[in-house]
């Protein structure tokens, strides 16, 4: 079938790598890891993604790869249900599908390279915030868009965790920032005065963390209102060092890209089969598989003490 003849014409494996969006340091870093893996494997890497929040663009790119006849697609899904439709089509065309970062529906892919479970991320964020505020008080969340699927999943996990473990904490508001740092800053400024008892801001999107931090800093509430969030060390270093942002939580993004490509290649070559419990991911060594989730490891909290050691 199509997967037999690689798009390049030669024997080389063609791996297509789809980020949620391209204009974003997170996925740029992912791509770096992915390129390294492709080089190690001698595979061809196609990298393409939407430039803005057009939900149909991801489908378009996947379908383009289907007709191009790539061997394997590795995708991070902005629109979970939406992209699953296209990924199923890819599978029907004999293309192997793997997801990373943000999962599709189970039947639309073979494996999910899990940087951390939704629960894992939600728990880590809230646990961090809770410990900073002494397990009680009001907090608010900054998200990218109210429609963003995996951010909504994390928010759900945060809510569940709060109900279960931190009854004295209260989620007062959720604000979208359209993935714009400036908007996050304005939203946080409003939150700070609208909720004078606010103790913490949790940002589940990466531009939101520096945005929230800047607002807290300008309001003169450094230290009084804690900022935690998912973000890149490079974008938050200054705020973490100043003590505006207490913790930035993230996994090793470059490794995520690397691992994804390794897994995708193994899947395409038939080395990685459903039911496997571990596999060898090149320089990362042996990685654990739980069900159909390939685990990257637990998320990492960057703090004042360690943030200088990271350069992404």
């Amino acid at each position, binding site marked *: 079938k199509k997967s037999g003849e690689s798009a390049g014409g030669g024997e080389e494996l063609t791996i297509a790598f789809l980020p949620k969006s391209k*204009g974003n340091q997170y996925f740029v870093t992912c791509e770096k890891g992915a390129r390294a893996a492709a080089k190690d494997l001698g595979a061809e890497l196609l990298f393409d993604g939407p430039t803005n929040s057009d939900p149909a663009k991801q489908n378009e790119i996947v379908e383009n790869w289907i007709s191009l006849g790539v061997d394997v697609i590795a995708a991070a899904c902005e629109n979970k249900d939406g992209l699953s439709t296209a990924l199923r089509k890819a599978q029907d065309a004999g293309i192997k599908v793997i997801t990373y970062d943000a999962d599709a529906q189970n039947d639309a892919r073979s494996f999910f390279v899990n940087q951390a479970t939704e629960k894992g991320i939600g728990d880590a964020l809230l646990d961090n915030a809770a410990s900073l505020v002494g397990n009680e008080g009001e907090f608010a969340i900054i998200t990218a868009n109210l429609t963003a699927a995996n951010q909504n999943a994390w928010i759900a996990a945060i809510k569940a965790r709060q109900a279960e473990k931190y009854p004295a904490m209260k989620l007062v508001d959720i604000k979208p920032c*359209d993935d*714009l*740092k400036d908007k996050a800053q304005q939203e946080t*400024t409003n939150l700070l*005065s609208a909720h004078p008892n606010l103790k913490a801001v949790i940002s589940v999107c990466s531009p939101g963390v520096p945005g929230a931090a*800047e607002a807290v800093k300008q309001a003169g509430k450094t230290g009084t209102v804690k900022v935690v969030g998912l973000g890149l060390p490079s*974008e938050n270093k200054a705020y973490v060092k100043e003590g505006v942002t207490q913790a930035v939580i993230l996994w090793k993004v470059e490794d995520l890209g690397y691992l994804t490509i390794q897994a995708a290649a193994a899947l395409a070559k038939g080395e990685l089969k459903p039911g496997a419990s571990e596999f060898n991911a090149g320089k990362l060594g042996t990685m654990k598989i739980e069900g159909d989730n390939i685990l990257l490891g637990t998320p990492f909290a960057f703090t004042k003490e360690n943030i200088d050691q990271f350069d992404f």
Partner: protein
Amino acid sequence: MSGKYSREITVAGALVLLMVALAIFAPNFFELQPLLSRLTSQMPALVAAIGITLVIITRQIDISIGAQFSMCGVVAGIVAAAGMPLGVAVLAAVATGVAMGAFNGLLVAWLGLPSIVVTLATMVTWNELLRLWQQGRLMNLPAGFQWFGLNQASGQGIVIAVAVVLLLSAAWAMKNLAAGRYVYAVGTDAEAARLAGINPKWTTFGVFVLMGALAGTASVLNLVQSPQVQPNAGDGLELKVIAAAVVGGVAITGGRGNLWGVLLGLLLLANVNPALTHFHQPPYWERAIQGLVILLAVIADGLKRSKKTSAA
């Protein structure tokens, strides 16, 4: 006389009403520091709104200003990151804006192309060029750039002062400078202006150039408000300021409007979102409310006009 300023009075009334409601139900809105930050964060939009007001009074439109804003910000950021002094960065931003404005002006004034399509095309072109170039990375600015290297209070003071000075001098010039009157004359009737010895081409060109310069200035005022710049910082700015101008009573058919109305329109629209937050309402009504405000403003125009013609 009161008829002449009826729009300003209506919008000011709505704004006052909103403020009174806030004062009663959410007095925290008026806490000094957040108020100041909120105000400062609207100053770039205000400066851009001065430009769009001139453009619309000339009976043109410029939807590329968001793209210009982003581009100028990135150029200034790069110049600053290269270690150049602040002044050079400002100059670079303004020069970039002037160049982009001159490009629009050339096509509109001398080739007689419709400004809406020209600026649609340049908007897309600049935005995509920027994405191609910057890939959406959040750019860290050198230390000492934020708040012009001063403390926050002085920085905010300068930002607000620059915007206010620009507003006042633009308002003064539009009323008292021959060139300012040319803008109104050309927007009212370009042919009559030509017969009166005014060169409509130079006037139109000049207004687009000024728009570019103001977009550049606005981007600098945005840049100094945080230690980072996002390459798509201007996304949606054009809609925001055009809406402010329309709500403020600037006639899309040219020749009518003043900056006080625009200032009020901007403040009204910009406070919808903070007000929702302070009333503890969900954020998803914001866009619908803004749409309604625009429609109400334009319907008010229509009713006023039909009353006038039936009275005549």
